[in-house]
């Protein structure tokens, strides 16, 4: 039997977020199991390693391995931090987890605290979903009242405190060290690594940061065993993954599927292409993942390895679907604007380079392109890549490089003809108001 749904399984819309509902769905059983069986932290981590769970925040780093980096005999505070900053354009899965299943995240974080000997956790929730920040605080109250959270959890002697912290409009705070700076009450400017958070994290203390979806997967793994989770996906790509599908499909929204599911299947689940138009391009892992043309994308399965082989990234699982009405120059212009706007301004290549790239793309889109611009763009993007403090530089460069690479002729057309191949009215109607996903 294939398991398609773990985190979003059995949810009943807005009614399901309360503790009672979660408990009814088997919630906090994993925590109870760990405490009752007196599982050792090492055993918990071993289970995660077996599951082959990889971080759902974008980089896909093996979670069990990450947890094992936390110093064991450290004297002093250690922290667990959940990354619900979800700012990567196209990504909106963590919002649904927080909306319908906050206790699963809480339980995952408590287990993480247990496994890594951390006494305190923070969940960093982006400001735009402020109602869910409030909801999460309520869920925390419920968990505290029920004895799942706080000191001496369920009489086990293990204590863990968890708090919510909100962002207020900065994409970069999704980057883990920027997020830590932000919790520390500073602007969200990433730190240079090393030192890594596992040795120098929040307040300079050992810290592990995981994505919301990553934490949410943990209780199931403990309840059902790491192997089961691995089996649900494919080797090296364990479990299920929640995809946020946006753009030109009939039913944009959040879909949890087993790792390794063919892209075509997901497209079908989304009701296929809007208006029956043809798929032109897809960004498979959030706006920083390189764009892939339709033919390459259609051959992919949805897992880290397949998409990376195709030259892009699974990233956060944000699938942005573009049909043939899309002007790739304009699409890139908007993304470049985003990265330029969201650059934290700290390091030179990103601060200066993102603005440069945006201005050049903007010129091309507005009929002021020059023949040498495409090489210039690629060169500037290359000069940013790998030279910055954090991966936002790469994130800004990848779209530029991939759009120019895969759709070069379209850019050339713009430069030569001072206009787009796709007529403006077609572009406009293709991206008109569309509300089919609303249930």
């Amino acid at each position: 039997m294939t398991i398609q749904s773990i985190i979003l399984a059995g949810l009943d819309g807005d009614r399901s977020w309360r503790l009672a509902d979660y408990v009814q769905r088997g919630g906090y059983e994993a925590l109870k199991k760990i405490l009752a069986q007196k599982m050792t932290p090492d055993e918990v981590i071993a289970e995660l390693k077996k599951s082959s769970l990889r971080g759902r925040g974008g980089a896909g780093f093996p979670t069990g391995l990450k947890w094992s980096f936390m110093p064991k005999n450290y004297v002093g505070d250690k922290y667990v931090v959940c990354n619900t900053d979800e700012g990567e354009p196209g990504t909106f899965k963590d919002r649904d987890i927080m909306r319908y299943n906050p206790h699963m995240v809480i339980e995952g974080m408590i287990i993480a605290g247990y496994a890594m000997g951390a006494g305190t956790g923070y969940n960093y929730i982006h400001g735009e979903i402020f109602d869910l920040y409030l909801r999460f605080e309520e869920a925390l109250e419920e968990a505290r009242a029920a004895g799942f959270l706080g000191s001496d959890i369920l009489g086990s002697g293990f204590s863990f405190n968890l708090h919510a912290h909100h962002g207020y409009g900065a994409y970069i705070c999704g980057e883990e060290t920027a997020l830590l700076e932000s919790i520390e009450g500073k602007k969200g400017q990433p730190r240079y690594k090393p030192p890594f958070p596992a040795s120098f994290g929040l307040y300079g203390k050992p810290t592990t940061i995981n994505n919301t979806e990553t934490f949410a997967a943990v209780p199931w793994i403990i309840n059902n065993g790491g192997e089961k989770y691995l089996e649900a996906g494919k080797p090296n790509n364990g479990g299920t993954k929640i995809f946020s599908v946006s753009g030109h499909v009939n039913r944009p929204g959040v879909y949890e599927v087993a790792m390794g599911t063919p892209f075509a299947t997901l497209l079908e689940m989304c009701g296929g292409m809007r208006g029956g138009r043809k798929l032109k391009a897809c960004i498979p892992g959030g706006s920083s993942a390189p764009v892939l043309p339709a033919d390459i994308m259609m051959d992919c399965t949805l897992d880290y390895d397949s998409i990376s082989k195709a030259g892009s990234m699974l990233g956060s699982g944000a699938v942005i679907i573009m049909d043939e009405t899309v002007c790739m120059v304009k699409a890139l212009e908007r993304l470049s604007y985003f990265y330029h706007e969201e650059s934290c301004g700290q390091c030179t290549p990103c601060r200066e380079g993102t603005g440069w790239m945006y201005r050049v793309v903007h010129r091309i889109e507005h009929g002021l392109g020059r023949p040498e611009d495409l090489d210039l763009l690629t060169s500037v993007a290359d000069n940013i890549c790998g030279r910055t403090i954090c991966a936002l530089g790469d994130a800004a460069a990848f779209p530029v490089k991939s759009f120019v690479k895969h759709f070069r002729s379209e850019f050339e057309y713009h430069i030569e003809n001072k206009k787009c191949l796709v007529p403006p009215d077609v572009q406009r109607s293709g991206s008109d108001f569309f509300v089919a996903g609303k249930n």
Partner: protein
Amino acid sequence: MLQLEIDGKQIEVPEGSTVMDAARQIGTFIPHFCYHKKLSIAASCRMCLVQVEKAPKPMPACATPVTNGMKVMTRSEVAVKAQKDVMEFLLINHPLDCPICDQGGECQLQDLSVGYGGMASRYQEEKRVVVNKNLGPLVSTDMTRCIHCTRCVRFTAEIGGFQEMGQAFRNEHAEIMPFIESTVDTELSGNIIDLCPVGALTSKPFRFSARAWEMSRRKSVSPHDGLGSNLVVQTKLDRVKRVLPLENEDVNECWLSDKDRFSYEGLTAEDRITRPMIKEGGQWREVDWHTALEFAAKAVKGAAAEHGAASLGALASPHSTLEELYLLQKLVRGLGCDNVDFRLRQSDFSADGKRMGVPWLGMKIAQIPKLDRVLVVGSFLRKDHPLLALRLRQAARKGTQVSVIHPTRDALFMPLAARAVVAPDQMVGTLAQVAQALAGIKGVALDASVPAVTVGDEAKKMAESLASGANGAVFLGNLAQQHACASTLHFLAEEISRVGGLTLGFLGEAANSVGGYLAGALPAVDGLNAARMLAEPRKAYVVLGAEPELDCADGAQALAAMEAAQAVIVLSPFKGRATEYASVILPVAPFTETSGTFVNTEGRVQSFNAVVRPLDETRPGWKVLRVLGNLLGHSGFDYDSSEAVRHDLLGESAEVSSKLSNGLSRIAVTLKPAAAGLQRVADVPIHFADSLVRRAESLQKTKDARPPMAAMNAATLAGLGLSAGDKVKVKQGAGVAVLSAALDDTIAAGCVRVSAAHPTTCGLGAGEITVERV
């Protein structure tokens, strides 16, 4: 130790070193902007990218820890390409306006871009323009040139102690700025000018006055506080244009206080006197040196002959050179007079004759960061000793426990273990409490002369803190040294040091606070000290470098004494109020125009040369005193250089350490009940402390130079029926000043803070003080 290879060179570095540290160790230059050895690592400019074997991408040298066996290539194709690319990014939005930039010729961006910049810019878009900020009277901005290295921001937060600058906004719209409508106001803010690698932050007083390459660089020593910061004085056409730090890790590191940096503006003060003047028949006239010196010699000799040698008095500024101080005392002693002193602000001299040596810091300045426990008694630490405070702050932030006993709760920008804010007359009692508590913890008996006291919480905390360390010190600051019971405080501090196994130190007030003692510029046998010379007015005074009404403990009394004397010989670069009471004014050189020596608070003998020729007819003080000695017929005044004077005093080796000691024989400690009336807390504001800085125009525009007020805490104000802003009449001794009352809750109860050394308050005397509404 770790082994690594940089550009083929093998080296060994300590654990925890970065690639940048390693490269510096072997003198390999890696281009950089944000890196600065004294600041935290930002790793943000990306200029220092180098190739590291096996690393997939270039690594920032400043932030990459060395690992054993690492191979680094700083000039490989990969490294140079990365560096050039970063340089291109740095330049795209830079105005490239070097010809009109004050930093031109000393700009790190300009220097590096010659090697790394491309010929023509590939950036064809519009460049960014950033609005300039008003940072106050000292630092000028041109923010479009800023490359966001954040050195200035990190300096204010990490070294200055209070974040005055920040990087606001984000992306390419990020702006380096102070808080809205704020300026940079700490006593260290000028350092951001040096730190700024480009022309974004430049010196406002210096602006556009010379190009870097037109100026000569001469070494000198700061004449202000006891630290003796090492200076590079830049001159053009025999004029001082600018002062920069001369790096000396043991003294000022790479920093300067704003006072050290900008006081040179006082050199060209309006009342600079450049020709000798004498007053005859109530009229001042300029005369030649010979006439002036004859006149002076005659006046001195006359008074001595008429009223006896003891009717003379010599007062010297502690900012005078060692040579001047030495010759001055030699001069008066040659006349058979022992009345000479340089301790003009001191009021308690009962330690004279009981001291075992020259009071000093008790250690090397560079040892301060290694202390783990410190008690500071009576010091406006940041303002009196900006760079010592900086060192202590660095230590405190790394865990040194610092405690403070002082009448005001000044913002020291460092964590404190304990703090007692007590009225001046309660400082003795508080110190006695600490002594008693510490003796108790250590199980060592206190000297019998220390009376038993009830130990308060704060004193107990201090004692516990001091007792728990391995390397502690007690420092007596300016206020403690100027205190009416200075000797008692000294003795108690010594007791605390003894029972606690701590080092006792004096934070030297002035450039030659140690030198004055070494020079013997104080009574040796039966002479009068500075206070008594004024309380028991002399017939004739020789005043060296001082403005008695501003520089003495009791300004009113000093002025009265000057006015009543039959002859006052003033040796000074400035007229000041000397024209009101002097008989002759001899224009002697400020520190930039003479050679000389300052012995700093750690006993470091620092000699320096003139950096420019004396202005007009000005003469170095040591020469003037030499000729005066000759004219008075003294022997042993035939020096042909200031070095010869110093040799005469200190010998060839100039070794003084054996003369330094903070030891004191027993002083009977008497505890006084709290005074019934108001007590004055008289700080000497940083920019009024000596005659040169008083005249430095830009410094006089800073917040630190705001005119004195009568500041009190809320309860004290209310108790007097006053509110902030009221005009009040302040009376002390025979003097009166009209000031505004101010609310300042950092001041101990029952005290009024009225700054000294200022024209508006110098009429005040000593002792009891009253404040009432006008």
